């Protein structure tokens, strides 16, 4: 595992260096064009400006990128008692991955199933899932999805993809500004007619080509690396859970339930970063810039006897004419990681949806009380009444202490004093 992560790190560093070089080349070309009277200074100024834009964007996304993303998604944090099963699953996967600190857990009120991870540091990470995901997946499948997201955190994907995403964003902004500037200045007639010779033309052509190619190049690098990391996160998920089928069937369910509405409203999909705002952070959405789901499912189902990274690599190779993907073939560790049995039954979506809504209520501060007749009663935060009548069957319930306001709690604990 660590070997794969380390190798990935080296690859990522090269990726970032390559992107940064493209960015400074673009800056240089722009400077060269604008100050063609004094090319040397123009180039250094252009590079400097490009670097400043880059650093500022990095600072913003590293300091508050995850907060912005979680807020945009409308994610609300949950604690263990709000959603014990979800929280337990995250903790299980945290343990399986050997992460030092428990990621924070968030829930998003959306019927479309999805999940993402944010956080540039492994000890300050967060995982968010939608209510639709909770409703549709059984425990094994949910575990697979959470393991995939934890995989992103453990493999440092959230960190490197933020870095890469911001760099792509900076390149796109600069190229865009330059092209617009050119468009308007060409409308206003030719600048500096002093030496409108061949030299000027060459500079013009070189800068335009750079401005067109740089964004394409960086985006291609970005997407390729993103997809590769998805495979690795899938492989990690199989390894953590010892149960590839969980993630495979979760992926099928998620893919089958994507809707137009959700993907349109995804302003928070910085995988697609085209605008700077979206580039201020990194989220891992199970379904953007990802390899085709059917293929991911087929690889996971191809792991028939072992759940190790090596087994994933083998299953991948079977589908791709012996091309490797996660570089696990040379791993020294053993290949013997059995696959466990399925544990949880089929999920009842309607029941799941109700339970997911209950979690939202709890997060919002409402208490829930179930009457033996089957009715669930919502109890407002800090109520003063200490009992409630079931509207359906008329049974009177005592309200549990934790839902009461401080004064009502004192009363019910010590009634004699106040009489």
């Amino acid at each position, binding site marked *: *595992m*660590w070997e794969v992560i380390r190798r990935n790190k080296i690859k990522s560093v090269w990726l970032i260096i390559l992107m940064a070089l493209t960015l400074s080349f673009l800056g240089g070309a722009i400077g060269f064009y604008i100050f063609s009277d004094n090319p040397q200074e123009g180039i250094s100024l252009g590079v400097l400006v490009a670097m400043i834009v880059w650093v500022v964007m990095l600072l913003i996304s590293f300091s508050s990128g995850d907060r912005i993303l979680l807020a945009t998604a409308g994610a609300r944090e949950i604690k263990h008692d709000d959603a*014990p*099963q979800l929280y*337990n*699953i995250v*903790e*299980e*996967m945290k*343990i*399986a*991955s*050997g992460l030092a600190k428990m990621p924070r857990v968030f829930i998003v009120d959306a019927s479309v199933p999805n999940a993402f991870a944010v956080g540039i540091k492994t000890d300050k990470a967060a995982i968010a899932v939608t209510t639709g995901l909770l409703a549709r997946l059984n425990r094994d499948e949910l575990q697979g999805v959470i393991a995939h997201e934890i995989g992103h955190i453990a493999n440092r994907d959230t960190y490197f993809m933020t870095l890469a995403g911001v760099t792509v964003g900076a390149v796109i902004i600069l190229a865009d500004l330059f092209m617009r500037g050119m468009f308007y200045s060409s409308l206003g007639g030719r600048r500096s007619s002093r030496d409108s010779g061949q030299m000027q033309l060459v500079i013009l052509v070189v800068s335009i080509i750079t401005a067109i190619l740089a964004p394409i190049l960086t985006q291609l690098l970005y997407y390729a690396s993103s997809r590769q990391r998805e495979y690795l996160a899938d492989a990690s998920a199989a390894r*953590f859970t*010892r149960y590839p089928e969980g993630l495979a069937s979760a992926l099928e369910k998620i893919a089958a339930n994507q809707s137009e509405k959700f993907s349109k409203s995804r302003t928070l999909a910085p995988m697609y970063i085209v605008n700077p705002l979206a580039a201020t952070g990194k989220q891992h959405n199970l379904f953007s810039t990802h390899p085709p789901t059917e293929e991911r499912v087929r690889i996971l189902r191809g792991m028939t006897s072992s759940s190790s990274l090596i087994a994933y690599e083998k299953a991948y190779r079977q589908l791709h004419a012996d091309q490797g993907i996660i570089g696990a073939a040379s791993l*020294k*560790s*053993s290949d013997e990681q059995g696959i466990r049995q399925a544990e949880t039954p089929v999920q009842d979506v309607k029941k799941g949806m109700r339970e997911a809504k209950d979690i939202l209520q709890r997060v919002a501060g409402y208490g829930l009380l*179930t009457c033996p007749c089957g009715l669930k009663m919502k109890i407002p935060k800090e109520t003063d009444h200490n009992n409630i009548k079931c509207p359906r069957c008329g049974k009177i319930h005592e309200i549990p202490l934790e839902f009461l306001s401080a004064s009502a709690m004192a009363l019910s604990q010590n009634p004699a004093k106040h009489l």
Partner: protein
Amino acid sequence: MYFIVLLVILLIIIFWIAAMYNGLVRLRNQVKNAWSQIDVQLKRRHDLIPNLVETAKGYMKHERETLDSITKARSQAVEASGVADQAKAEGELNNALSRFMLVVENYPDLKASQNFLALQEELSSTENKVGFARQFYNDQVQAFNIKIESVPSNIIAGLFNFKQAEFFEIETPAERDVPKVQF
């Protein structure tokens, strides 16, 4: 001139040995940390069991024996020390718990009670956590042991007395109860 070359070579060797030694120490610490993770989860499991027994007592009057066997297995597991002993005691506890879960099927009221359901999720998740912590621990042990055995780090390991770490394997009831088919 020779002297300087020799000195440089000597320094390189010393640094190389130091790096290898540090690598072994790092791996050994990872094994230790992983073990403490298991320990935390086992403790948590031991803490949950009295609650479970208390809750069950109210519903099942005639299952004293099953409940007592859980309590007994638990106290043995709490007292166990060392990787092998702990594994054995946890195996016993697993057996007692799975017998209990079979008995629970006869008590629908208990099965439906909110308190019991919550405890059940906690207990089964804690069992999963023990399992995952064990999985992580064993991976670390494997990495450490491979390092100790392979050339050239085995020389350093022998020199500084690094000992192989023990794997943690709990015997699961399923494995034990499957009857052996003999031909």
